[in-house]
């Protein structure tokens, strides 16, 4: 267990809508991330993966609230910290995020070097500015950027691929134990995407990133990036296993449907009819009694809507379905 | 969207002030005797408990004059605002949607009007009309010379909507320019046009105050600008009769200020990029 860099234990996170309704976006998620591993979180929009990210980082800013459960990074819990404490000790240093739409997360009115310096100073006020610049230069060169040019530029002057590298560079300056990449390449074209993933692998190999949580809805990407995959649906993990298990031998009905719906340009795929499921995920503002996928499940049985589904071990991986075999 | 406006303190202050002046203008006559004809005292009597702001050069109650003037100025402002907004919107939305040659021609026309100093036109038109100068006519003249701002503002918005998917869909449903502009562009611009109208009204009030101050205002009615004009002509300030000039000036300034503040607040809400 001491191998685990990030442990999430029965985490439940909710947010309050404008009208005061409580939406349980993450409802009992548990997993652990080992050092040196990339764990993929797969799911579609609305499944709770983005809320899970905020939860793992301790970013419980209203309307987002922590309901119950624990999050531990390198053994120390981050639940219950004030935001101030969280910002100082946790964010950027123990756990860092590469956000979705990273291209817009850079403050357009400041030079890259100033943004990076601010990041460092917010964790260590006593750091020497010149020393910082040297280290920034060294780190940026290491990640394949023309440091002198990039550091002195404004975000708007840089192309999309370079900006993505800069964001990754700044997020990993302090060698965080856990890096959370939330759809880091969805807005990029395929060639840039490949380059960014290569960069992430490189950073892992160099020890700059110890372990990574990779969140995406693109399954083929996870096939190549992660060693284990957790599939989320309606705020819960429905299947968690190795990449081989989840992609090639899914056991839970939603995972099966998701894998079956993939369209790829590989020979033989034209004869395969992709799986289609009617309906939409359930409304999480309303407490759900039984299985959340029961409404749409092609193998639903009469008691699925009544019995709450718990995680079981099936064929060497975790599955949330009482009838999976 | 309007909830956002109510959250902005600037909007609440501006709207509040403006609403107050409108209420006073509309309802004051119900509570007090607004009499702009009767001499109630000597010329330039200072403020007293009977006549809160004294009398003018003819001995008429200043408060009555101010209320009547306020009503007239608001009348001109709103009418001019309506005219300018309608003209400007029609030209702007059409040019913005069509683009190309039509847009170029309309833009040139707009720029021409922009370059001609509207005050000069107003002065020329007003002086040639002499006795025919009614409040409504003045409002019309102001409206027809100050629409250029609306045209440019609406044009930009219309052009940005041109490429939207729902407009493309309407086109492939066979709708022509008129149908698309009325059904698919104007509804999306309604709140913007309202904001434009507020600004045009402010312009109207100020324009009226300017030309009336120069003595080219309405022939028969009282207006805030006319009050100022009379005060200047009868040397009220040198006589020390500040009450004949200052309150009218303050009223004009308050109205203009309120309307500009409302406009800024609305810009902030409708144009999120400005918010930061």
């Amino acid at each position, binding site marked *: 267990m001491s191998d685990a860099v990030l442990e999430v234990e029965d985490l439940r996170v909710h947010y309050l809508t404008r009208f005061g309704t409580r939406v349980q976006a993450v409802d009992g998620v548990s997993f652990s991330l080992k050092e040196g591993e990339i764990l993929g979180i797969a799911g*579609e*929009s609305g499944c709770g993966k983005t809320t899970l990210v905020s939860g793992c980082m301790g970013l419980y800013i209203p309307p987002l609230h922590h309901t119950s459960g624990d999050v531990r990074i390198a053994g120390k819990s981050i639940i219950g910290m004030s935001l101030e404490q969280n910002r100082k000790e946790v964010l950027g*240093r123990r756990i860092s995020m590469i956000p979705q739409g990273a291209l817009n997360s850079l403050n357009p009115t400041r030079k890259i070097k100033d943004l990076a310096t601010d990041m*460092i100073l917010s*964790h260590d006020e006593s750091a020497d500015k010149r*020393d*910082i610049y040297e*280290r*920034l230069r*060294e780190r940026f060169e*290491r990640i394949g950027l023309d440091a002198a040019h990039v550091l002195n530029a404004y975000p708007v002057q840089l192309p999309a691929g370079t900006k993505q590298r800069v964001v990754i560079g700044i997020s990993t*300056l*302090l*060698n965080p134990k856990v890096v959370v990449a939330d759809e880091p390449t969805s807005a990029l*074209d*395929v*060639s840039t*995407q*490949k380059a960014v993933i*290569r960069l992430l*692998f490189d950073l892992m*190999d*160099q*020890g*700059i990133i110890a372990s990574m949580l990779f969140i995406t809805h693109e*399954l*083929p*990407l996870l096939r*190549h990036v992660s060693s284990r995959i957790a599939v989320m649906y309606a705020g819960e993990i429905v299947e968690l296993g190795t990449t081989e298990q989840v992609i090639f031998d899914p056991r839970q009905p939603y995972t099966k449907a*998701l894998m079956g*719906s*993939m*369209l790829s*340009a*590989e*020979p033989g*795929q*034209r004869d395969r*009819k*992709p*799986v*289609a*499921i*009617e309906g*939409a995920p359930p409304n999480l503002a309303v407490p759900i009694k039984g299985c959340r996928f029961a409404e*749409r499940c092609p193998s639903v049985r009469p008691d699925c809507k009544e019995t709450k589904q718990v995680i079981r071990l099936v064929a060497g991986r975790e599955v949330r379905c009482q009838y999976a075999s | 969207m309007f909830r956002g406006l109510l959250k902005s303190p600037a909007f609440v202050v501006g709207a509040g002030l403006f609403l107050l002046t409108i209420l006073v203008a509309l309802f004051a006559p119900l509570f007090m005797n607004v009499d702009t004809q009767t001499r109630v005292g000597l010329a330039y009597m200072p403020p007293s408990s009977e006549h809160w702001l004294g009398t003018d050069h003819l001995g008429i109650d200043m408060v009555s004059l101010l209320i009547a003037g306020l009503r007239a100025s608001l009348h001109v402002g709103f009418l001019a605002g309506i005219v300018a907004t309608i003209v400007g919107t029609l030209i702007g939305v059409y040019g913005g949607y069509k683009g190309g040659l039509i847009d170029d021609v309309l833009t040139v026309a707009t720029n021409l009007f922009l370059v001609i100093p509207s005050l000069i036109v107003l002065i020329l038109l007003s002086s040639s009309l002499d006795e025919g100068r009614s409040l409504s006519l003045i409002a019309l003249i102001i409206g027809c010379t100050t629409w250029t701002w609306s045209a440019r503002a609406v044009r930009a918005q219309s052009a940005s909507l041109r490429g*939207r*998917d*729902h407009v*493309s*869909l309407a*086109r*492939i*449903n*066979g*709708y022509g320019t008129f*149908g698309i502009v009325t*059904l698919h562009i104007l*509804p*999306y611009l309604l709140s913007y046009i309202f904001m434009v109208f507020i600004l045009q009204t402010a312009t109207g009030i100020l324009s009226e105050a300017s030309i009336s101050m120069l003595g080219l205002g309405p022939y028969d009615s009282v207006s805030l600008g006319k009050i100022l004009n009379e005060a200047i002509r009868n040397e009220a300030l040198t006589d020390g009769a500040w009450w004949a000039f200052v309150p009218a000036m303050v009223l004009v300034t308050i109205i203009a200020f309120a309307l500009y503040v409302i406009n800024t607040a609305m810009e902030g809400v409708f144009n999120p990029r400005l918010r930061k």
Partner: protein
Amino acid sequence: MQAEPYKFEARNLSRVFRNGKKTTVAVDNVSFTIKDREIVSLVGQSGCGKTVLAKMLLRLETPTSGELSFNGRPIGAERDPRDHWRQVQAVFQDPFSAFNQFFTIRSQLKSSFHLFKEKPSPREMEERVDQALLAVNIKPKEIEGKYPFELSGGQMQRMLLARIFILRPQVLIADEPTSMVDACSRANILDYLMKLKEELKMTIVFVTHDIGLAYYVSDSIFIMHQGKIVEQGPPDRVTQHPESEWTRQLLDDIPDIHRDWIQRGPPKSAVEPAAGTIAETA
């Protein structure tokens, strides 16, 4: 006997945008043919020109040079574009932006009848709208009196398809019809499109960045890059034996389930954090 004209034929077709000093060549001298009842996909990354080309097929953009004909006659020859739209229609990527937010969805479906030369009677219009809704598995009651924002993404997507059932065109231009749809619902949309194709004997032109989708549905794939068509051909040939370097690069860069994607070397030695004075307490 003369062969039937192509559904679409393009010869040296270009579309250039001039904005002050800046000139952008969106579509660069392309030539191709699309046959009746064929399913063709225009595939490429964003900015490659596929959307502008699709708009030209749809007569929403005019070529700056070259020829583009439909059923043997140049597009734009007829003054009234409605003749073209009676035969060529489209579904768009984002169903919420494709409809006006101020009118009910049913009234907007009815507004499609505006295109007809002879408008059917009000009762027939209502019937046809109902039939179109049922064809996409929506009960008319479900959308009664509702505005677009009151419906789900899946329902709105089907509204775009219902409109096609009402209009019954010969050609459908489908612009990224599944990119904003859940993976599990994607196949449903494709099913409806195939159902439409069979029933109306349509020719379909897909515009997409997803080569997997193009591979699955198409009879012919056009790969576009920087305004040019760099590769044309049947899906198997294009994906297994690409002739253009760009296509090879593209296929290489796309992560697939079965093929290898990135080679990973052995781990390198550890690197100091960029701010060395920070001590990490384990």
